[in-house]
C-alpha cells in the first residue's frame, strides 16, 4: 500500500513540477477563466439582471470551461514526447496512474477556482456568503467529481484525431449532476442560507464523486492499455 502511495505521489510530483516549471496549462486556464468573466460582463445586461443572482451559475460555467481547457491536455504532453510509453510500462499499476492524474488535475482546478472567485469578486463585487469553510467543502467535493470524469475522458480524447474538440461532447452529458447540485449548493451558500439547505446537494455531489472515481479507477486500464 505504501509503495502504491509512493508511486502515485511520484507521478503527482512530476506533473506538478512540470507545471511549475513550464506553467503551460495553468497560464492558459487562468487566462481563460478571467476572460470568460470579462465576456460575461458584456454578455449580460446588468440593468435587467442582478449579477449576484447568477453568481453560482456563472462561476461554475467558468470553472468548467477553464478546467476542461487544461485537463484536456492531461495526456497530450506525454504523448507528444512519447513519455506515455514509459509511464505505462513502469511498474506503477494503471489505476495508480489515473489517481495520480486526478490528484494533479485537482490541484490545478482548485487553483483555477481561486482565480475565478477572485476575478468575479473584483469585476462584479460578488458576495460569497458567510461560510467559507462550507464553500470550500462543496467546491472540493464537486471539483473532485468533475476532475475524476474529465481525467478519464481526456485519456480517451487524447487517442482520437479529434483531440480536445471531442472532450466537451463526451464529458458535458456526464457532468450535468455536478452543475445541478454544485450550482444549487454554492448558490445557497452565497445567499448565506442555513447549512441544512446545502446538505442535500452536498450528499448528492459526494455520491456522484464516489461513483465517478470508482468507475474511472476501474475503467481507466481499458482506455490506455496497448
Amino acid at each position, binding site marked *: 500500500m505504501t509503495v502504491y502511495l509512493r508511486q502515485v505521489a511520484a507521478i503527482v510530483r512530476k506533473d506538478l513540477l512540470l507545471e511549475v516549471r513550464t506553467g503551460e496549462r495553468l497560464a492558459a486556464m487562468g487566462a481563460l477563466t478571467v476572460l470568460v468573466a470579462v465576456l460575461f460582463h458584456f454578455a449580460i445586461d446588468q440593468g435587467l439582471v442582478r449579477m449576484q443572482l447568477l453568481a453560482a451559475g456563472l462561476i461554475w460555467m467558468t470553472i468548467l470551461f477553464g478546467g476542461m481547457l487544461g485537463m484536456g491536455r492531461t495526456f497530450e504532453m506525454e504523448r507528444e514526447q512519447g513519455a506515455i510509453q514509459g509511464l505505462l510500462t513502469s511498474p506503477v499499476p494503471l489505476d495508480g496512474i489515473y489517481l495520480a492524474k486526478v490528484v494533479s488535475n485537482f490541484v490545478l482546478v482548485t487553483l483555477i477556482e481561486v482565480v475565478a472567485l477572485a476575478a468575479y469578486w473584483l469585476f462584479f463585487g460578488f458576495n460569497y456568503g458567510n461560510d467559507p469553510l462550507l464553500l470550500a467543502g462543496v467546491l472540493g467535493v464537486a471539483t473532485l467529481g468533475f476532475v475524476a470524469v474529465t481525467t*478519464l475522458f481526456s485519456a*480517451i*480524447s487524447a*487517442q*482520437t*484525431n*479529434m483531440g480536445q474538440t*471531442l472532450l466537451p*461532447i*463526451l464529458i*458535458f*452529458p*456526464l457532468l*450535468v449532476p455536478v452543475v445541478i447540485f454544485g450550482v444549487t449548493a454554492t448558490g445557497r451558500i452565497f445567499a448565506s442560507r442555513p447549512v441544512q439547505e446545502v446538505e442535500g446537494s452536498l450528499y448528492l455531489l459526494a455520491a456522484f464523486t464516489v*461513483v465517478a472515481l470508482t*468507475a474511472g479507477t476501474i*475503467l481507466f486500464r*481499458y*482506455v490506455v*492499455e496497448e
Partner: protein
Amino acid sequence: MSLARIRWMATVLGVLGVAGVLVLHWLVFFWVGTERTMGIVQRIFYVHVPSAWVTFLAFGITALCGAAYLWLRDERLDWAAQSAAEGGLIFGAIMLTSGPLWAAYAWGTPWTWEPRLTLTLLMWFVFVGYFLVRASAEDRQAGKRMAAVIGVLGALLIPLVHVSVLWFPSLHPQPVVLNVEEGPTLDADMLVTLMIGLLAFTLIFFSVFFLRYGLEHLRYQRALETRGQPRAA
C-alpha cells in the same frame, strides 16, 4: 452464426416488424378508444413508449456487450454492441421527437427540464459520443475499447432514468404497465395496442440489429481476405 443465417433472421424479423407496425397504425387510427382528457393526441403514446423501450433495451445491450467485450475481447461482442448502439440512437431520436410533439399539447410545452427528460437526452448524447470516439480513434482496437467504456458509463444512466420518475415529482406520467402497486392501469384496448407497438418496434430493432451485425461480420471476413495486401479504400 453463419452470414446466411444472420441475413435470413434479419429478413424474417424485418418482415414481421413492418407488418406489426402497419397493424399498429391501423389500430392507432381506427380501433383503439380515444383517451378522455388528452383526446387524439394521446395516440402518440403508442409510438413514443415502444421507441423509448427499444432505446433503453438497445443501450442496455450495448453496455452489456461492451462490458463483456472488455472482459473477453471477442470481436463479435463488439459488433453486437455497435449494432445495438446504432439502433438505440435511431429509436432514441424517434422517442425524443415524438415526446415533445405530445407534450406540446398535453403539457402546453414541448420540453421541461424534469429528471427523466433531462437524463434521457443526456444518455442519447453519451451515445453520440460513443460513435464519435469510434470514428475518430487513431487505433481501431483502442477505439473499440474506449467506445465500450463509454457505453458502460452511459448505461449507468438507465436505472437513474427509470427511478427518476418514481423518486422525483414531475410532469412525466407514471408507469402505466410496469406499475408495482396497482398492476396495469390501462384500458384493455389501449394495453393491446401498446403491446403490439412494443412487439413491432422490438422486431424491427432486432432486424436492423442483425443486418448491422451481418455487415460487421462481412467487413471482418473481407479484412481477413485482404490481410497482407494494401487496404482497399
